[in-house]
């Protein structure tokens, strides 16, 4: 049995439009947020969950965390059904929303944590130890007496993360945790999550639009679009399907002669630079570099694979999302 099992989950919402003039009833549209979604996740897995806005990511996280009741289908986390055994289930999970604060706004975060201790009925010693450990790892020691409202976004995110991990959950849901964070904060957060996953064995389900997060953290990625699961597997496998083009930027001392380049390559000139786009499947990179060297005296060269965001955008386009 897997830790998280989801089978044929369905959820739809009825949205009433504004009443049009001269009509008595309002038009209704049904939005299928989830359609027969099935997957399973094992303990200690770190899974990324991606898809464009409105794909149903948040809906599935809300169902798995016990906020929403699905229309049909089964889901269990550690053998518990989230929406029927809510209280028992949520003792084992932590949830962090990047855009929504769960701690109390006006009081020092330590007070918030103390209240969480009572809410989760955490043993006093366990609480002190865990708090020590988390404040150390998240660099929160100096901030414990500061109210949430006086913190920067990065600090707030760390404080939230600490709050949702105090009861040592086995499963952590992260909904866009790095949204709006600066580079340093992002890297620190990723490092922390990786450690939490490795050392504590916390299962993590990460929803994000930041592909760097996925690339850095997750070995497995699920793609959701229009409420359906479209891909489930390794990130490199997903990328290799769409990563069909590479670009090379070169600069020469003298005017180059590109006659030996095959026709399938496209050539662009941008200032002193030449930009060559090619498909590595047709022409190996080593081969093209050799030919570029023949073309003249090379001054500088950089080879790039396509930006991961472009790949995902292309994927969404091709999947018609």
């Amino acid at each position, binding site marked *: 049995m897997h830790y998280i099992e989801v089978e044929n989950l369905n959820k739809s919402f009825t949205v009433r439009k504004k009443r049009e003039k001269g009509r008595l009833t309002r038009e209704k549209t049904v939005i299928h947020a989830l359609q027969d979604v099935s997957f399973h996740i094992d303990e200690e897995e770190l899974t990324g969950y991606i898809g464009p806005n409105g794909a149903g990511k948040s809906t599935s996280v809300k169902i798995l965390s016990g906020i*929403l009741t699905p229309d049909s289908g089964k889901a269990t986390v550690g053998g518990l059904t989230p929406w029927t055994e809510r*209280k028992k289930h949520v003792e084992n999970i932590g949830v962090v929303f990047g855009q929504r604060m769960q701690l109390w706004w006006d009081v020092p975060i330590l007070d918030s944590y103390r209240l969480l201790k009572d809410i989760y009925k955490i043993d006093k010693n366990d609480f002190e130890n865990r708090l020590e450990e988390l404040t150390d790892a998240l660099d929160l020691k100096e901030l414990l007496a500061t109210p949430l409202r006086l913190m920067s976004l990065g600090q707030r995110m760390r404080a939230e993360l600490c709050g949702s991990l105090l009861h040592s959950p086995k499963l952590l849901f992260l909904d866009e945790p790095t949204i709006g964070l600066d580079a340093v904060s992002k890297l620190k957060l990723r490092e922390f999550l990786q450690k939490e996953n490795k050392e504590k064995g916390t299962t993590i389900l990460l929803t994000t639009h930041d592909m760097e997060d996925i690339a850095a953290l997750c070995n497995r990625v699920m793609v959701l679009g229009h409420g359906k699961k479209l891909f489930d597997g390794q990130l490199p496998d997903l990328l290799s399907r769409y990563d069909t083009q590479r670009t090379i930027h070169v600069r020469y001392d003298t005017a180059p002669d590109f006659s030996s380049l095959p026709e399938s390559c496209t050539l662009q000139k941008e200032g002193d630079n030449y930009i060559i786009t090619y498909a590595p499947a047709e022409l190996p990179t080593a081969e093209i570099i050799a030919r570029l060297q023949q073309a003249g005296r090379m001054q500088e060269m950089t080879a790039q694979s396509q930006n991961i965001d472009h790949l995902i955008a292309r994927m969404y386009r091709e999947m018609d999302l």
Partner: protein
Amino acid sequence: MNTIKLYLHSMKMLLKSQLQYPWSFCLQTIAQIVMEGGEMMAVLLIVNRFQSLNQWTGGDLLFFFGIMSITFYLTECFGRGITGNFAALIRSGNLDTFFLRPRGIMTQVICHAIDPRRIGCIAVGVAALVIGSNQSRVIWTMPKIFLFTEAVLFGMLLILGLFLIEAVFAVHSVKSIELVNAVTYGGRSACQYPIDAFPGPLRVLFGTLAPFGLVLQVPSAVILDKPLMGIDGAWAFLCPLAGVLFFAIMYFVFQKAMKFYRSTGS
């Protein structure tokens, strides 16, 4: 036990966060005293003009006003989680957070807000009650003290129940229904006067549907030794149970409504 501990801890913390803005707190409390004091003046004016209303003397009217103010504002003070803006709780996504914690939703709703500024209104209510019971020469015997306490406590449950109607509507349409205010705030305004002063339909409304009459006024009348609608003796002690019943029904409906909660955006 654990729930009470959690409630007390939450209240302590919320009070602390309210006092983060001491000036705002003081000014608003004063404003509340002025507001509620104004309401009390209205009662005094009536008494001045007419000496009595039906069988009720000025002292009696102040008593009715006092018990209503105390009950209503104690509820608003300690039950702010429910009497506050429930629709905003849904819109802001805070209700989602409650689902993520291993406690009852209702417990967390009650624990999430407090309104200590109401202390001003409660003080006005106490003053009215003391003046009223002095003028009407109430002799406070043990049964009367018990009846008074019962009325106030169950009255608080009734008021919470009434506000829960609004909460249930808010779950359904994610918007607050102003109509419900007619029985909550409207009920407070109307039922600070004895309901036998009102025409039939209003008497039915506040006697049965939103039973302020049974929960607060029957006991008050007995304490003043002028039984309302002939209800006296043991019946007077049973009437406030209507508040418990009302709350129990609304609690049940609220729990059902939570099953249909659909959350907002992401």
